[in-house]
């Protein structure tokens, strides 16, 4: 898979969180928030990560960007494994990978003006000679995302949700990154504003040659922007591949269910698959088998005992399933 244009390569990344102890002498148990997560992202590509809430999308994103420490696996950014780097060694990579957060109401510091918010990262990474040059640069990025020059001395609470998300994007752009993780950047916004922000991201990708990891629970949003798509269920990546293949020919039973739930205008949807039962909580670390097996209509003995691994079923199309038909 390694090619010239590969930017980020995540291999078998696992992130565990401790559970509350049930007794003083009990061993602390861990849940796998993200298990054996492998994904590769090319330059200028938008990778969409989809899954229902609580499936570990955000945890995966936060671990890749090293807000959390990965427990296992490698995060190879541009040829360097950064998964074990201490904060100091990580600093040069901080300006290459940025993140846009879900909630525009808490992702901007309420006590800093918009100009400050965008200038600070430029100053910190010494991307400008002096303060006035840094502010000039900040204005440039704010202008790119559509914040007016007359508004830059205001505080975040004086802006609408969409505007704040634009400011958030400008802050991420300010350090001239190559890769941006957008963690549900539009799910807190109005539908009309969603399209604006998505188009802005697409424009910025062209202009600044950015790669994106785009997280969403809304398939329509992912369909609109992504080149490739990954589907997550309970901490595991169950299927990923080019977006057209996933949407037209889903192979994993979970993906099929997910897609059949999306109504498509003017088209009779594929036969509807309805799952029984609730989404169980994330499995503990000693779990083996397929996480989806208990709700899967076609699970076998093997599914319950052996953990499926991602395998390439057709060119660039991977699934983790024992019983998928080809």
């Amino acid at each position, binding site marked *: 898979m390694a090619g010239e244009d590969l930017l980020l390569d995540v291999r078998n990344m696992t992130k565990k969180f401790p559970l509350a102890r049930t007794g003083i002498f009990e061993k602390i148990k861990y849940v796998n928030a993200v298990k054996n997560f492998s994904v590769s992202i090319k330059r200028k590509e938008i990778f969409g990560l989809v899954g229902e809430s609580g499936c570990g999308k955000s945890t995966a994103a*936060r671990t890749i*960007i090293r*807000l959390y420490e990965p427990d296992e696996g490698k995060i190879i950014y541009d040829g360097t494994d950064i998964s074990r780097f201490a*904060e100091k060694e*990580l*600093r040069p990579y*901080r*300006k290459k*990978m*940025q*993140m846009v*957060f*879900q*909630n525009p109401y*808490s*992702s*901007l*510091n*309420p*006590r*800093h*003006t918009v100009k*400050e918010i965008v200038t*600070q*990262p430029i100053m*910190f*990474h010494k991307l400008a000679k002096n303060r006035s040059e840094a502010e000039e640069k900040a204005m440039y990025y704010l202008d790119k995302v559509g914040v007016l020059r007359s508004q830059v*001395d205001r505080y975040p609470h004086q802006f609408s949700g969409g505007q704040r998300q634009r400011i*958030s994007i400008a*802050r991420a752009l300010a*350090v001239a990154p190559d890769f941006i993780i957008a963690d549900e950047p539009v799910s807190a916004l109005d539908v009309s504003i969603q399209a604006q922000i998505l188009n802005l991201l697409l424009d910025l990708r062209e202009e600044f040659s950015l790669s994106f990891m785009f997280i969403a629970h809304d398939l329509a949003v992912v369909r609109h922007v992504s080149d490739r798509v990954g589907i997550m269920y309970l901490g595991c990546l169950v299927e990923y591949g080019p977006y057209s293949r996933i949407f037209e020919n889903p192979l994993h039973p979970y993906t099929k269910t997910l897609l059949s739930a999306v109504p498509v205008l003017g088209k009779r949807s594929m036969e509807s698959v309805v799952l029984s039962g609730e989404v169980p909580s994330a499995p503990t670390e000693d779990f083996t088998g397929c996480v989806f097996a208990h709700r899967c209509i076609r699970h076998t003995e093997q599914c319950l005992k052996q953990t499926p691994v991602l395998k390439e079923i057709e060119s660039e199309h991977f699934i983790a399933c024992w019983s998928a038909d080809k």
Partner: protein
Amino acid sequence: MMDNKSLISKIIKSEGLYNFKRNPFAIAGALIILVFLFTAIFGPHMVSQNPYDLAQLDLNDSYKPPIWQEGSDPRFILGTDDQGRDMVSAIVYGVRMSVTIGFCVTIICMIAGTTLGLISGYKGGRLDSFIMGLVNVQLSFPSLLIAMLVLIAFGRGVWKIILALAFSGWVTYARTVRGTTMSEKSKEYVEAAKVIGFPERVILFKHILPNVMTPVIVIATLQIGTVILSEATLSFLGIGIPITEPSLGLLVAQGYIVLFSGLWWVSVFPGLVLMLLVVGMNLLGDFLRDEFNPRLK
């Protein structure tokens, strides 16, 4: 950078100032504090006598009553004490001492308590347990008792009383700031700052600190009054500041000995002034507390 023009216009337009102008108690409190600050800073240059310069005192002037009573001396409006000291001058010097102690203690407590609370709340884990352990141990002793222990161990002195009171006063800030920090640190703007790569020091003091200052300011305003009273108590008990640099509390204590022999003014006037000072602080503090706490509106 927050430039001054926008800050001033923000204050003028703010809801806080609007409420302030409609709250007579808050205005009264602010005025009282302003008068006291003015007295503390310029007062000693305006009164006729330095009551603690022995060369300016005359024992023949001792125990003159206030000016409206028989046997008074027009030089001494509020009378004199046993050493022939002018009560007005003594009170002005006392106000200076009390206000200095009140502000110094509060500022020290604020800085120490806020810093420890920030670190405790942000870092969590063992360090947090240790700092909060200290806080809880200290809260289980009466603060005056702690101050008395420190003073007895180290002796009298203005700086010693400031440190003694600060030693027992920082805990309130630490607890409050820790709680607010814990809720702030999980917000996404802190994560965004981490992703940018800011070191912890910058995240703590530049990003989180401005968001936890509101309760700190309220506690500080209310604490100044308490500190002044504690200092008065300690001085009254004779373990506070030295007799050569009296505060309002010490003046009350000195007059207390002769209170029931008809020489009431030596004790009562400093006491009234002390009361006024503390009331002013509390009025303003109450206003700020209500203003910053949306649940009380």
